């Protein structure tokens, strides 16, 4: 078995080289309570920073998605205090002012791009903040869509911006107010409310299983 040396919170462990950082922590004997959720790159619970000996660059990653390297110095970031403003989705509107009211610090962005460089999902964070500044919420929503809200970007931001929360607000505004309205959904809900399918459903539910089986096995399947 090929092994590498990793330094977990500065302490040295020898671990199999094919493990993820999360796997290496468990292999070393950590029983994780914090810093571990989906184990598959979706929840952002496992934000982690590291340096590799001899290279001054500070890297950020998701521990469940990143393979260990030799001489990696790892510190987990199981919690980062993001600023989350509260708002009533029914009352706010997708105007430029709403960001100014809720997250005014985005206008203090100095353009250092540290957020983008540190994003564990490889997103163009600074650009989506620029869209948010201009009230272009659909664009902000699209560019930030894959955000897992791990908070690493905010930990690197000299302006104190909570990028994931800004993006979340933009996406909710987009989903609720800017994206086109779905008429067929309203129509179907009304049809169900008016009982249009009751007869069909109850006749189906009252059929003997053999008959239902027959219907199922011979149903027409949309291409």
């Amino acid at each position, binding site marked *: 078995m090929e092994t590498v040396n990793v330094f977990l919170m500065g302490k040295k462990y020898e671990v199999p080289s*094919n*493990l*993820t950082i999360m*796997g290496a922590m468990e292999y070393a004997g950590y029983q*994780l*309570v*914090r810093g*571990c*959720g*989906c*184990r*598959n*790159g*979706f*929840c952002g*619970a496992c934000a982690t920073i590291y340096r590799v000996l001899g290279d001054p660059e500070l890297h950020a990653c998701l521990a469940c*998605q*990143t*393979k260990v390297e030799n001489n990696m110095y790892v510190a987990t970031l199981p919690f980062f205090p993001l600023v*989350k403003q*509260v*708002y*009533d*989705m029914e009352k706010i509107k997708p105007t430029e002012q709403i960001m100014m009211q809720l997250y005014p610090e985005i206008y203090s962005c100095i353009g250092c791009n540290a957020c983008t460089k540190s994003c564990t*999902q*490889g997103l163009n964070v600074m650009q989506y903040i620029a869209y948010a500044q201009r009230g272009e919420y659909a664009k902000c929503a699209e560019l930030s*869509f*894959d955000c*897992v*809200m791990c908070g690493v970007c905010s930990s690197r931001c000299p302006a104190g911006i909570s990028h994931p929360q800004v993006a*979340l607000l933009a*996406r*909710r*505004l987009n*989903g*609720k107010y800017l*994206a*086109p309205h*779905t*008429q*067929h*959904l*309203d129509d*179907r*809900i009304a049809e*169900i409310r008016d009982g249009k*399918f009751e007869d*069909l*459903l109850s006749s*189906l*539910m009252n059929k003997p*299983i053999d008959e*239902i*089986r027959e*219907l*199922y*096995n011979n*149903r027409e*399947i*949309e291409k």
Partner: protein
Amino acid sequence: MYNEEMTVSIRKVEAARAANAALEPRRMTAEEKDALLRTYHPDYKKGEFRTLKIGANAGEQVPTELAALLQGHSRINPDKIDLRHADYDVDVLIIGGGGAGSSAAIEADNHGARVMIVTKLRIGDANTMMAEGGIQAADKPNDSPAIHYLDAFGGGHFAAKPALLYKLVTEAPDAIKWLNDLGVEFDKDADGTMITTHGGGTSRKRMHAAKDYSGAEIMRTLRDEVLNRGIPVVDFTAVIEIVLDENGAAAGAVLLNMETGEIRIARAKTVVIATGGAGRLHYQGFPTSNHYGATADGLILAYRAGAKLLYADTLQYHPTGAAYPEQIFGALVTEKVRSLGAKLVNVNGEVFMHPLETRDVAAASIIRECSDRGNGVPTSDGVGVWLDTPMIELKNGEGTIEKRIPAMMRMFGKYGIDIRREPILVYPTLHYQNGGIDITPDGMSCVENLYVAG
């Protein structure tokens, strides 16, 4: 990234790609499916189940690992618990901060109840966050709740409780609307029409998605809404017992702070169990697609309180878990990859089944291909078959993968596999518990005031 043996097989997959893409494989007959399932599906492995000796389901079979927990001792000593002093006192206590728990909390809040969520990890660290493919509702003109009913009833081998299924299919469009109104960004055409695809076994395209982060998009929106409303969330705290009152009705719960080991008591008028699945029990040694906290807690809490379980012996093995590389062994490869046109191909480059059979049939078929038929591709952890992702772009044009399944592209891209150009290796993974706690259409278990959602 692929080893030599795999690369040799990939050449065969590539050579056959154009022909395979054009092929419309035959669907299996009902008899063929039955025989396949009985021989190859893990639910039919008798030695992996135990008969329960105690509780509401005594005499029934459940997976060995679950039996041990259902019949185990409590982790607390009743003498050390003082129920006279509740640390929390609420109307509605919700156990589990996933999609079901968060939705229940929002609705309870809408109706003026004092509600609290207790959850084992953070709110949103849940299977909901991981759902990729999408959420089904019959809201298109060519579809109807009755067709949805037939698809789901047949897909579940006619074992569903009709009243529950009726509720599901008639309320699903409402649920989509409810989420959309909260700001969930469903995939839509320019005129607002939902972009929907097939799921395994569906006869209409009714799967609504938000790219392949459908669950994440739903979960982060729900979480934001819970926080906006100031609903208290007690995180890193597991419920370890349900408390019953003198009449046997649910009246609260015993809580364990996962970090400090401290025990707390919550009193409530109504208790809702929304603790999700059981994949992390790794039944039969299968890998799982589930999150860290999916350990069947709800089944055990409810069973110990007197509730009855239903179909605890039927599990869903998702046919396409990642089989390679080993860092993502067991992780879900969403069904949408197949809905978009990728087919399952064996070591020789042959398509061996229709890609959109129901999940149990597809899983059993892959297991057959890799075992008795010997047509699997060996990996370091076992074996797998190809899911020929480049077919998607062949059929739908370049850029489709990046636009429709970015999470999949990223998941494999991290390990040097470009799914636009190379196929991926898959094998069934433990995904979902088909059964759960037996409930009425209003969600109550047979224990008074003990509700279940999920």
